[in-house]
């Protein structure tokens, strides 16, 4: 077959750019920032960046499952608030051992995610609508349970979850753990493959004997549980269950996933990209902080990056 090396080379470059474009961008930005601010490349600052992205990272890893099936979950921010309130309610000093509030928070998120999944698959309603509904319902539940006030008086064991372990922030360790497990799951477990198949072509997946509804239900449930985990950790860090916490968190999480190369129409992407996406957003935020850029401008930059990243991805995909 006639196959000029020229085209092979450009194709190869295009593939490298597509696969590692975000890594290259990340490295370039880090190098630039270390020039502008001597403080950037210090261990302390890098830990700060990691801590800052940990919550968004956990949410983003969870919602990666949903986006891969071609769905969306808008309820994450509200679930963070609800599960934080639930966890804080079980975490008063002397009430229960530590695992009870943690498990309660995760289960609350898992249950909400499961409701999302059941309504979407059984009611055949668009995920956008269902999770938009859950966004409001979960926020309302958080306010009802807490009586509209922050749930404070938290046990020291619980607040320690927001602290460090062996010199590393626990939220960061949790993010690494969930990301690693999710990555292994999507790559090496049959159900992980089915998630990609459902997102790639739902009808073909069904015709291949895959229980599409079960796969979707699983994705929303996992996503909800991860939101619960994030809610528990946020509550521990701010030492209260805040019914008004987490507003618009879902958008940052989805942004991280999309920057990381996961397609909103499903079937393409993965946890590795999501982690890089969250990292990129965090590094840029941190860099702008160090450069004393006002937070108003930071928002503008963040928005431009989201669109820019997807634009680059589209270009490379062609």
């Amino acid at each position, binding site marked *: 077959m006639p*196959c000029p090396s020229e085209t092979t080379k450009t194709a190869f470059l295009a593939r490298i750019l597509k696969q590692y474009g975000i890594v290259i961008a990340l490295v370039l930005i880090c190098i630039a920032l270390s020039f502008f601010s001597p403080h950037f490349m210090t261990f302390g600052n890098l830990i700060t960046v990691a801590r800052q992205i940990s919550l968004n990272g956990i949410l983003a890893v969870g919602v990666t499952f949903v986006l891969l099936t071609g769905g969306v979950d808008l309820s994450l921010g509200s679930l963070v608030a609800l599960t934080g309130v639930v966890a804080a309610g079980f975490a008063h000093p002397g009430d229960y051992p530590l695992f009870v509030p943690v498990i309660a928070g995760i289960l609350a998120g898992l249950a909400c995610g499961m409701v999302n999944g059941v309504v979407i698959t059984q009611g055949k309603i668009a995920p956008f609508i269902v999770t938009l509904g859950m966004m409001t319902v979960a926020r309302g539940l958080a306010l009802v349970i807490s009586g509209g006030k922050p749930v404070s008086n938290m046990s020291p064991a619980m607040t320690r979850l927001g602290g460090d372990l062996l010199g590393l922030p626990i939220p960061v360790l949790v993010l690494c753990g969930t990301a690693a497990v999710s990555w292994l799951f999507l790559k090496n477990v049959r159900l992980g493959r089915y998630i990609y198949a459902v997102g*790639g072509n739902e009808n*073909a997946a069904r015709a291949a004997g895959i229980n599409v509804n079960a796969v979707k239900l699983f994705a929303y449930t996992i996503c909800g549980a991860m939101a619960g985990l994030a809610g528990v950790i946020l509550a521990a860090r701010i030492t209260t269950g805040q019914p008004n916490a987490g507003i618009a968190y879902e958008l940052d999480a989805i942004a991280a996933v999309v920057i990381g190369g996961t397609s909103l129409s499903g079937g393409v992407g993965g946890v590795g990209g999501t982690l890089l996406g969250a990292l990129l957003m965090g590094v840029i935020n941190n860099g702008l902080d160090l450069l004393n850029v006002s937070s108003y401008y930071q928002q503008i930059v963040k928005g431009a990056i989201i669109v820019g990243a997807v634009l680059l991805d589209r270009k490379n995909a062609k």
Partner: protein
Amino acid sequence: MTTEKPQRGEIVLKAANIHKAFAGVQALAGVSLEIRSGEVHALMGENGAGKSTLMNVLAGLYQPDAGEIQLRGENVVIKNPHDAICKGIAMIHQELMPIPDMTVAENILLGWEPVTGRAGWINRRAMKQEAERLLGLLGMKLPVTRTMGELSVAEMQTVEIARAIGHNAGIVIMDEPTSAISDREVEALFAVIRMLTQRGVAIVYISHKMDEIFRIADTVTVLRDGIYVGTHPIGELNEQKLIALMVGRDLAAMMPKDHGKHGGTALDVRRLGKTGKFREVSFNVQCGEVLGVAGLMGAGRTEVMNALFGLDPADEGEILVNNQPTHIRRPADAMSLGIGMVTEDRKGYGIVPTMSVEHNTTLAALDCCCVGPFLVHARERAVADENIMAFGIKTTGRQQAVNQLSGGNQQKVVIAKTLLARPSIVILDEPTRGIDIGAKAEVYAIIARLASEGKAVILVSSELPEILSLSDRVLVMRQGTVAAELDPRHTTQEEILKHAMPI
């Protein structure tokens, strides 16, 4: 305007030495084409030969890597599909792209609606008149206020052609226009084509159906593996010569029929029915037998098969597998009973376009590459490579995205996937639609092999020669019911058609 049809019109379009590569794969390597006004120019070649790529270059969807395009003697660059239309090149795609909720008139005049005033109010009456005038030119009476979604495929096609002539297109490209319409509608289409050529329009016609080419084409250009093979007046060719040009080899005995002995009844369908789709459908299939199912579009063949496979379950009746009653509600049920199906709609229900050849191949039988819930990647790779070899799938490797393959190779992936689940009853719904002759021959060989292995095969096809030469028995469906059961050794295409025609 001259009254007689010009025998050899002037050259309206000349493409010279066109090159185009995708991701390192050379799709076109120095292809040339000359189109004259008033001629039907057939473009022939196996799938993957580069026909679609060439047409998409002419229609402005792709930019060539090298080469020249001349329109009426002037060098041009066709920047995008809109530019192509402005330059008088219209393309009727194989998969029609109407907007189903808009009316016929709105679709025909989409993008150049007649407006009044500066504000651009759409003049609905002018629009309706113009749409009616264009359809009238094609000899078509269609209420232009109906929505596109209500039309048949053939009617939609006519609407697209009306759209093309509305743009004063001098060149109309038709990509497999007859792949989804009935024989009578083909006649109507040919009448339209003749009318267009008499007006000096050049038609570029892509089809896999030999008889059509010999009926309608004036000139044939053949491509093979992205290379220009030659251009011939139709008078110089016959079917054998043309096939030899296309595949570079002779395919005299393409359709083997060497089936083993028939075993017991594998599948017994009793009085199956579904409201509005089909009713009282009864038939059986033996092990080691190929049951051909013939019928016109809309006769309910695909609907019955979808019911058997659980894609769209039946309302009433019984399905017995190995003499046991079953309850098939979803494909997973059918698969656990040993039923496998290659669906008619390859893009819709066959491939997962975002996945590789490997992952598509193993998708329906992932258990064979798993320990518990965990994938064993080495085993999966081995299974994929085995199937790529066994089915002769032309690919750069198992990692290649399946949607980069040609139609015939995609179909082979779908067949490999279906058979990997080791079904004992195999349903093939239009397995050779839109694939090239080489791949067709391979599919025929697979069908024969399946039967000789003792599997029960149901072959749904609109190509009667295929049905007649591959089947042990032929079922003819008409308007949702079984109209006849025939012995292929003692019947003819005419007899099958007689049973298939609505009364």
